[in-house]
């Protein structure tokens, strides 16, 4: 058993870390305050081959494994949850399904621009009335000659307002439940596609979260991803990978919160000594460190299992559940360690606190992760 990262992975992690510290950390609060998607950062990430880390080189990706992708996502989360979230959605939810389920033509047309970072990707499953019970969806796709006509509303869609393509889940066979769902590649330029809301959120505001309306959107039949009725099976596979990236992003948030708390506690003096010398603060920081380490171990194990080609449903749910809690708890503790300063927007912990909360909600709530893990345990 070898816990040492391969040299290539370490170099990639260190390079992305340096980029994040130099280029993202200085603007991380500003883009939150402005609710601004930082296109220029994503352009730079594209230049560094970051946008398609786990996508095959054949389609313009880096050809890295899930572990490499997890390392990169963690580094982004360590400085900006919002950038990390847009990145994870772009890769896991928008790019990987085309690679896994698409035809050669679809990969050339839709995957290549995502993998190179020429375009951002989005993925639309959730609806206003359908969240955890994702199969109960109202968006319909009716066949009309050699086209499909899509109608419905999708909710909380990351990147939709900045995307070059959106993978939309829709019902092609009403009444068939899970087996009646299909996936379509929709171009936001298609007639009838409209972003109707970009939500103001508690955090992650540099990452656009959108409501989209599909009003008689006509797409040619070659935009169907895989076969009709495969949408739900694709979703489960997509989320198995996606949850590893949210676990990695959460580990990054937990690490970032820890970094800020540790640094401050070493400098801030009260009663004549650094507050890190008081048991109350030292123990808090040690616990934060423990949570980062365990979240990272679970995340790397899930990524490693994925890379072995093994079933990863339990591992990814476990990593996501643990890491998202670690992120929220560490962020809260970091605010507490910084005291009054931690509550101000001049210091980062409040931003981590805001960002971390979503990790327990998106790509399956913690309650759904318990459900998934319980099933795997035969409960």
């Amino acid at each position, binding site marked *: 058993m070898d816990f040492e990262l391969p*040299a*290539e992975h370490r*170099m*990639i992690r260190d*390079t992305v870390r*340096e980029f994040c510290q130099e280029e993202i950390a200085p603007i991380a609060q500003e883009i939150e305050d402005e609710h601004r998607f930082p296109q220029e950062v994503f352009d730079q990430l594209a230049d*560094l*081959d*970051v946008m398609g880390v786990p996508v095959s080189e054949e389609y313009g990706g880096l050809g*890295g494994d899930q572990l490499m992708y997890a390392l990169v996502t963690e580094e982004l989360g360590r400085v900006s949850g919002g950038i990390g979230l847009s990145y994870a959605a772009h890769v896991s939810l928008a790019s990987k399904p085309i690679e896994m389920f698409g035809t050669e033509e679809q990969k050339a047309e839709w995957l290549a621009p995502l993998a190179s970072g020429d375009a951002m990707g989005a993925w639309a499953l959730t609806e206003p009335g359908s969240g955890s019970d994702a199969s109960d969806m109202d968006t319909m796709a009716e066949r009309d000659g050699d086209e499909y006509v899509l109608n419905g509303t999708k909710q909380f869609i990351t990147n939709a307002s900045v995307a070059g393509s959106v993978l939309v889940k829709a019902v092609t066979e009403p009444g068939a439940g899970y087996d009646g769902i299909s996936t379509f590649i929709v171009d936001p330029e298609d007639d009838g596609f409209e972003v109707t809301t970009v939500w103001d959120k508690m955090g992650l505001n540099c990452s656009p979260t959108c409501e989209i309306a599909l009003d008689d959107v006509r797409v040619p039949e070659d935009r169907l991803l895989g076969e009709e009725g495969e949408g739900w099976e694709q979703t489960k596979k997509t989320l198995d990978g996606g949850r590893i990236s949210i676990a990695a992003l959460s580990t990054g948030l937990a690490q970032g919160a820890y970094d800020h708390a540790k640094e401050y506690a070493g400098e801030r003096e009260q009663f004549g000594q650094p507050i890190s010398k008081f048991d109350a603060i030292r123990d808090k920081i040690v616990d934060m460190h423990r949570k980062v380490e365990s979240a990272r171990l679970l995340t790397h194990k899930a990524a490693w299992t994925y890379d072995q080609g093994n079933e990863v449903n339990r591992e990814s749910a476990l990593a996501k559940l643990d890491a998202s809690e670690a992120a929220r708890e560490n962020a809260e503790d970091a605010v507490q360690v910084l005291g009054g300063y931690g509550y101000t927007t001049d210091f980062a912990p409040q931003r981590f606190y805001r960002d971390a909360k979503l990790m327990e909600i998106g790509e399956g709530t913690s309650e759904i992760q318990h459900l998934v893990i319980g099933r795997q345990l035969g409960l």
Partner: protein
Amino acid sequence: MKVLVTVKEVAEVEDDFEIDGTGVDDRYLEYDLNEWDDYAVEEAVQLQEAGDDIEVVSVTIGPERAEETIRMALAKGVDRAIRVWDDALDQDLLDTATKARVFRAVVEEEEPDLILTGVQAGDDAFGATGVALAESVGQEWAAVVNQLDIDHLLAENVARVHRELEGGVEELTDVELPAVLTIQTGINEPRYASLRGIRQAQSKEIAPKTLADLGLEAGDVESSLFLTEMYEPESESDATLFEGSAEETAAELASVLREKGVGAE
């Protein structure tokens, strides 16, 4: 054209550290590519990108651990690397003349048209290896180069360089190749290695060389400098607080500065 870039893995010391014998305790050290060398590598890679058929080779003196650092130069576009190491080189301190002798052997083997070095290394800060190497191989040189006219170099085989002198004065010099240039920070903006570059660098060659491979013997690398002691100097601080209006305190400050000899009369 062949460009040789000398690079060094330097130790960076944490803010708080302990001294162990004549060095800083390993626990407080992190290793990284020397900052000045990063600029030298970037300059070489820019030259390679601007010209045709230019090979960039990096050379370092260092143990196996240094491979990770030198591989970062490969990730940024250097074609291949040479790492010289030998038990005889494992000394507390390699003086400049010794390093120049080792590099000379590499230069004689590689016969580069242009050699770039960093102005200095961030750890021992001798700032002399490049110039000593030029002297040793009998080539022209320019030190502390903060601008290089790449087009002119490619067209005329002459390095037209700006050199940074004291007091903000710059010197413009033409140096005929083959030559050694020691590169100053700020000459360019070193790139981040792309992730594809990092992946490709894993399979680029880092050729290990012993002294014998270079036709040298242990006797050739006997340093004439020895570290005798390492200690933290006692530090004193003496702060004077001026209180009162801006006018009063400014006048007081001015008289103190005059007394201490700061500023021109």
